[in-house]
């Protein structure tokens, strides 16, 4: 008995008693350091947890630590964090969820952890993320994070091509929290989904509402609004059919790809020099990446850029910075590369007979389709499925994530070499030999033909479509980047 008591005494003496007052003081210090951008903020926050591991500020300290690692607030901000930071942040948030479930920021931790699960990094798990978002959204006691989670669910539906579900979720956010922080994004979301549904005028109005409510510029609302207004009025308003803009790109000798940037401008890859250059809207250099054996480049619907070089895929970060992703393996050299909204990459092999899919965060491509008689010449993510052009059959085909193929339409093209899809789901196919760009709808129905020569384009070799619906073409004959609203 005496021993037991002595043991308890010793254990009590060794266990550090919680110090809520000290933790509170330390938290203030840590917040000040964080506000000043001090690198010591993280360790200061760690001390808060040490002082009172289960105290009222423990969840705050853990989440603040995660925030200092650069975790996203919104799903549109995915793809900016590096794997190590993501893992560290996930561990911090895990601790809140697991050890402090009754704390007031527990719902926030679940939401943020769900976003991290959506990062296109190893550990990506959109199913788990969806469940966690549903958990926050449907909480018995809704919080501000419930509407964020609801919005994120809508965003996830959008990336997965479930546009009706996405529209429903965005609408619900709008109705249930019309003045909340998700409001502007929800308006932009409904606008984008209406644009997908071909309701350009209504989409223009709702995207405008998003802009007025403060939606981030660029791909969220401003770009799609421009497209929506254009689609609604292009026939009626000559001002919406301006002349093409031509910008010299003399440094490009052998084009390795073209990808419009989310913030305006374009990325151009030069195979010979192994450089990817970014041009802003005025044609000024806005960034450069060097990759040995550069083959092609692509951008996903959120403007995140990727490149295939030397048998590997890369994500292009801030100017000059690249992050290696999966190996291309026997798909190299790629005939086509395209990216979906979740950061998954679709590869078409050199022969155009195999399609591989690099899931977000995966280290290698999984083959999703193979057609021995096909010769896929171009591919683009439509928003819900992969569209590809069979150069041999001249067919536009659609491929879902499970590899099921649907023949959409046979295009009377001489030599289709590139394609792109705009945010309204319209498909542009470049017929390099004919010097024409054919427009079709996602279901294959034809919309019209754009004559490159009439825009002064000598030899179009690549095309892309910006978030605002502008057509971007590289004229190899003149070495120019041409934009046509």
């Amino acid at each position, binding site marked *: 008995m005496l021993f037991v008591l002595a043991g308890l005494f010793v254990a009590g003496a060794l266990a550090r008693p919680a110090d809520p007052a000290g933790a509170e003081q330390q938290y203030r210090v840590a917040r000040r350091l964080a506000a000043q951008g001090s690198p010591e903020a993280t360790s200061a926050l760690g001390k808060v947890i040490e002082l009172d591991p289960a105290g009222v500020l423990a969840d705050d300290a853990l989440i603040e630590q995660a925030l200092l690692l650069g975790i996203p607030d919104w799903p549109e901000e995915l793809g900016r964090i590096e794997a190590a930071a993501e893992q560290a942040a996930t561990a911090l948030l895990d601790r809140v969820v697991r050890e402090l479930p009754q704390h007031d920021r527990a719902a926030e931790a679940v939401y943020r952890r769900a976003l991290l699960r959506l990062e296109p990094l190893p550990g990506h798990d959109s199913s788990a993320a969806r469940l966690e978002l549903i958990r926050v959204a449907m909480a018995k006691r809704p919080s501000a994070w419930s509407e964020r989670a609801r919005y994120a669910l809508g965003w996830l539906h959008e990336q997965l091509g479930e546009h009706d579900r996405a529209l429903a979720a965005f*609408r*619900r956010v709008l109705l249930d929290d019309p003045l*909340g922080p998700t409001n502007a994004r929800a308006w932009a979301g409904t606008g984008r989904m209406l644009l997908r549904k071909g309701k350009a005028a*209504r989409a*223009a*109005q709702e995207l*405008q509402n998003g802009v*007025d409510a403060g939606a981030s510029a660029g791909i969220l609302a401003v770009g799609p*609004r421009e497209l929506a207004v254009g689609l609604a009025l292009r026939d009626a308003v000559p001002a*919406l059919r301006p002349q093409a803009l031509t910008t010299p790109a003399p440094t490009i000798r052998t084009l390795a790809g073209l990808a419009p940037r989310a913030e305006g401008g374009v990325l151009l890859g030069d195979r010979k020099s192994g450089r990817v250059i970014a041009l802003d809207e005025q044609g000024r250099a806005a960034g450069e990446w060097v990759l040995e054996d550069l083959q092609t480049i692509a951008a996903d619907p959120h403007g995140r850029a990727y490149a295939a070089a030397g048998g590997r895929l890369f994500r292009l970060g801030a100017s000059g910075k690249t992050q290696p992703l999966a190996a291309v393996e026997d798909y190299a050299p790629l005939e086509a590369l395209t990216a979906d909204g979740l950061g998954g990459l679709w590869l078409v092999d050199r022969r155009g007979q195999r399609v591989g899919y690099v899931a977000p965060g995966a280290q290698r491509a999984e083959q999703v389709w193979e057609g021995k008689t096909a010769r896929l010449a171009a591919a683009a993510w439509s928003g819900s499925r992969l569209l590809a052009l069979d150069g041999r059959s001249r067919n536009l085909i659609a491929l879902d994530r499970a590899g099921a193929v649907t023949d959409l339409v046979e295009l009377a093209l001489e030599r289709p070499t590139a394609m792109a899809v705009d945010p309204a789901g319209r498909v542009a196919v470049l017929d390099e030999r004919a010097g024409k760009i054919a427009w079709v709808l996602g279901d294959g129905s034809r919309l019209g033909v754009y004559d490159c020569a009439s825009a002064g384009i000598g030899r179009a070799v690549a095309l892309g479509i910006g978030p605002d619906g502008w057509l971007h073409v590289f004229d190899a004959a003149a070495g120019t980047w041409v934009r046509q609203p």
Partner: protein
Amino acid sequence: MRRCCWLRFMLLTALVACGLGPLPRSAEPEAPRPAPGVDEESESVGAKLEAIRDQLVGLRFEKALDDVQALLGLPRLSESERVEALVLGSQAHVALGDLKGAEVDYREILRLRPAYVPEASLTPRKAMERFTRVQAELVGRLELVLDPPDARVWIDGREVSVGPAGVLALLAGERVFRAERDGFDPFEKPVTITPGKDLRFELQLVPNARTVVVLTEPEGVEVVLDGAPMGVTAASAGGSRQPAELRIENLPLGEHRIELRKPCFRGELLRDILVVDLLDRSPKRYGPVRLAPVRSTLELRGGPAGAQVRLDGQPAGQVSRDPLELCPGEHRVELMSGARVLWSSREQLLEAETRVVEIDVRPNVALVGASAWPSGLGALAGRFNETTGITLPRGSDLSVADAWTAVELPAGTDVALAVVPRERDSANPQLYLYSPILRAAGRLEAVPADLDRPRWYGSAWGARIADSQIGGPARVVEVASSGPAAAAGLRPGDRLLSIGGEPVAGAGQLRAMLDRAAPGSTVSVRWLTPAGETREAAWRGARSPRLLHGSADLAQAALRAAWAAADAAGEPSQAACPLANLALLFSAFGQSDLAVETWRKVNWGERAGVGGGTTLYYLGRELEVLGREGEAVEAYRAAAASEATAFDDEGPPVAPAARDRLFDLGVTPP
């Protein structure tokens, strides 16, 4: 022996008579009784007197005399008791044949009661003679002739009663005579009373006041004399055709001012110098004064049909187009819906004035601990039906709703504002707000930004408008066929330049400008067509409900709820929109049960845009919160199948959101 028997018989008869009734009262008033605290002694004196009477009846005269002597030796014996004892003693003396002793008694009695006379029929002749001789020695008579005859008389400072004959028996000697009567100057004079003699004294008092009678038509007129209310005139006994009168007794002579007032009649003022006529003592009559009736007219405009009018707290019928005939003066006018005050006002109406008052249904605000709106909220004065003067509870934390149960708020209070003085800063009191509707209270830290009356209706303009980087600002991207924009001539592609002369910089600004326009109003719009032509037209918006959202700010929400409650009660046929907004507020404040109850009352009727589907969506949401998922699913199903919109008639449709909720509930949407 025969003589003795006769005497005994007579005495017995007299004593029986005395025993049946009290001793006849003297004409003189009762002398003051002994000091208080001797009641028991007085009672015992009464008993002793009674015992003496019994002894006389029992013919025990000696014993009676002994007892009388013993009684007279008592201190504090009242005058009447002493007189009574002496009378009994005189009777005992007479019965015993001791006339000398009786004479002594008579002297004592007459000194106290000069008017005393033994009952002649019961007093033996010899005894009566003795009494008469004593009386002639001690008492003289004063024969008074008074004008006025009802004047009060005092002899030696003691008030005496003068009988109809006007004769007073007084002890001989120097006496002070005084006469008084209201309305006359008092008179005082010494007089000498000679024993056994009569003195005649004629006196006419000099009047100093006069009774007046105010006669009016009609009756019930308030008479104010020299600023003091004297009463109201009443119908005289002569019948209803006679003027009503008010009699004012003994009004002092001199100048007087008589105001005659009656509600709904023009007042009159009489001025007079009141004089007296020694010969004519009749009251002075004023009038009859005929007061002319006067009226004012109060016309109530804009009140909700069917609302009850209450004037000065009394029901006065329903709101109608007919003006109300009222008496001039201040009136409290209220419009009621059941027990709820919809609108109230104090109107000071002048004579013959026609006052037109625009009725504006308003919430009821109670100011607790204040008689007026505190500084900073002065802009709210006059916007509400206010009740002031409510006592501030002591020691309660008024930021908690439960604490307000201690405050006696009037029925129908929509918002209460408590003004709590600070100890060290009395100029800046602490304000607390309570919303009985939302069952919420809190401290008012700052004046709400928006104190304006909420607008439950706005306009739908029938056009979708967006900015474009290359197409320019405020482009019309779509026009609803047959809608307001189409009627104004707007077409897709037009670019709006100005609204009401104010330049349009963009779609967002344009929306704000249009939102400011009154519901269903017309604005002038100028635009540029795609062909470059500038056009101008009148653009009339279509009235559309507005569902206002998200006021977590207590003050804002409390005011909004108050307006919603007032408007819903004030115009039941237009209650859908305020009720819907009230339901949204209940939802924002976690009152789902009230929200459900309120949504169920919302009846939009058949209309496109905001309508039944809107209600069902929000109703389903609250039912879901309450755990009534089955009912919620039914509501969502109906909402998902509708084309109803949220916010306003051009707002987003509710169907997709309802579908999303059905997904959450594991139900396949329609």
